[in-house]
């Protein structure tokens, strides 16, 4: 909303994250890199859940499809070209989202949640149980894609620092892209659909097409996150497509505050940080995590994205609105 007022904290956060590789610790570089990937994933889901009002419970499918696509499309003993595998895997996720969207978008509410889940489970079993995916052990990506263009190599994804900044750059681009799209006539229609789809139809909008566009775009960006995940870790497993992952990314969006891109990023950070911290404390970390999520839903309806506004209001003496 007030993009300029919140620009400075966002830039500070970006600068802090950009300093992580200076630590030189591979562990941190990899784990923060993973969180950035999940943040892209969460933003892609927020386009559906937070902005269009479509609660997809199968978003991990598109993440996993692109992740498997890199592993499958890359030759075993040499590096594939980034400029081929990146668009190909993202395109496959987009295609899957488009086709699945043709079916699931005919349903609403709880049915939509269940059919998106059902399609994601189908995708899970395709990679789990057919020769395509390599079973429950998954598949290795032996050679990370090469960024070279006619012999010139702008960056090297086998270098962990390069990989980190590549992910960070993609995150910033996805954020800017989505922020721009949401201001476009297309984005305004999505927000209108979330608010009152019936009204949009009576105003002459064929809302199905817009929802299909949003679903495909979200699938493509979810696939982009999955692609980065596969390249970052060098292997993929069917668990990437499991309903737990669909649930986790939904929790990130809820934690961060639905309908706020920066919130989705914050939600991904909070979720992964809690997972690390609680897992250190107890093996029953999911209990603690569940408690925090219940508390956020009850006491912070706007999620983390709503916190700055609350602080501001508290400082101004609790004025309403």
């Amino acid at each position, binding site marked *: 909303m007030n993009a300029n007022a919140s620009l400075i904290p966002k830039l500070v956060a970006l600068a802090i994250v950009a300093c992580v590789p200076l630590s030189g610790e591979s562990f941190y570089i990899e784990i923060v890199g993973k969180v950035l990937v999940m943040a892209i994933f969460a933003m892609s889901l927020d386009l559906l859940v937070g902005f269009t009002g479509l609660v997809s419970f199968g978003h991990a499918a598109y993440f996993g499809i692109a992740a498997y696509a890199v592993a499958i499309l890359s030759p075993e003993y040499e590096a594939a070209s980034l400029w081929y595998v990146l668009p190909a895997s993202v395109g496959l996720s987009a295609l899957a989202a488009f086709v699945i969207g043709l079916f699931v978008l005919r349903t609403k509410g709880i049915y939509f949640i269940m059919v998106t889940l059902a399609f994601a489970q189908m995708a899970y079993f395709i990679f789990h149980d057919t020769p395509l995916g390599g079973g429950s052990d998954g598949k290795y990506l032996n050679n990370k894609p090469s960024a070279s263009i006619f012999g010139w190599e702008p960056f090297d994804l086998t270098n962990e620092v390069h990989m980190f900044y590549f992910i960070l750059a993609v995150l910033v681009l996805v954020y800017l892209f989505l922020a721009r799209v949401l201001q*476009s*006539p*297309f984005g*305004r229609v999505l927000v*209108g659909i979330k608010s009152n789809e019936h009204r949009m139809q*009576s105003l002459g909008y064929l809302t199905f097409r817009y929802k299909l*566009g949003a679903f495909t775009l979200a699938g493509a960006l979810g696939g982009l996150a999955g692609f980065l995940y596969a390249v970052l870790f060098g292997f993929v497993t069917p668990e990437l497509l499991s309903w737990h992952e669909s649930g986790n990314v939904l929790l990130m969006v809820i934690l961060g505050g639905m309908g706020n891109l920066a919130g989705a990023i914050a939600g991904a950070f909070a979720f992964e940080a809690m997972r690390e911290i609680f897992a250190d404390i107890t093996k029953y970390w999911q209990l603690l995590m569940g408690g925090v999520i219940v508390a956020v839903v009850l006491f912070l309806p706007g999620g983390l994205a709503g916190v700055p506004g609350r602080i501001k209001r508290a400082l101004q003496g609790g004025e309403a609105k």
Partner: protein
Amino acid sequence: MSTTTKNEVLLQADRLTRRFGGLVANQDISVTLERQMIHVLLGPNGAGKSTCINMLSGDLPPSEGRIHYLGKDITALTAAQRSQVGIGRSYQRTNIFPQFTVLENVRLAAQSRRQQPWSLFTKAMEQKWALDKARACIEEAGLGKRVDWVSGVLSHGEQRQLEIAMVLSTDAQVLLLDEPLAGMGSEESASMVEVLKRLRQTRGILLVEHDMDAVFAVADMITVMVNGQLLECGPPAQIKASVAVQQAYLGTEDSFHV
């Protein structure tokens, strides 16, 4: 209203019937709407007025009967498609985007006339044609002072005006208005009547209404419905004088002292 007979027929519904299971909500209802005319659907609760307007707007498919708009059969068109040909509607319960400003509500409605879903990098707020149109329609609906207000905080009457502004910005030639005066104070009601009279100059308006004073203040033609059936159709004077109408609809009330 001797001139109205010469007017162009915008909307014509022939023998519309709608059944819900065994219940016949509308039976053989025929309605004609001409340009520069306000046609009121009148009837007690449960008479089937909302069912009728829902069939005209495309929210509900008729079980039988045809609907023509400017001579073309539009019976099979969806609500969105009817909006695109020129039939706009407002709803009985206020139906706006409460978290948007008045301007954004109407701008979004205007945008529906020139949809460019592929132009992802245009800023919606910089589409001048849509903004200009929205401002003009807000003015026409009498909401000029509320352009930048968040619509959810407007008074009930103003929200109804906003709905009308939204319909106007879709270039609708036919306005289907479901109880535009419901829940309004007398002052708001009077200003809405003025708005309706102004809108009539270039369009055709079909409205469902209970407020008797308002009905006779604006109606050029009245169709009275009872129990899903058409009881009588004619100019206000005829309806006022009709014994059948008085017995069926007004017999129990004394609200007919206009």
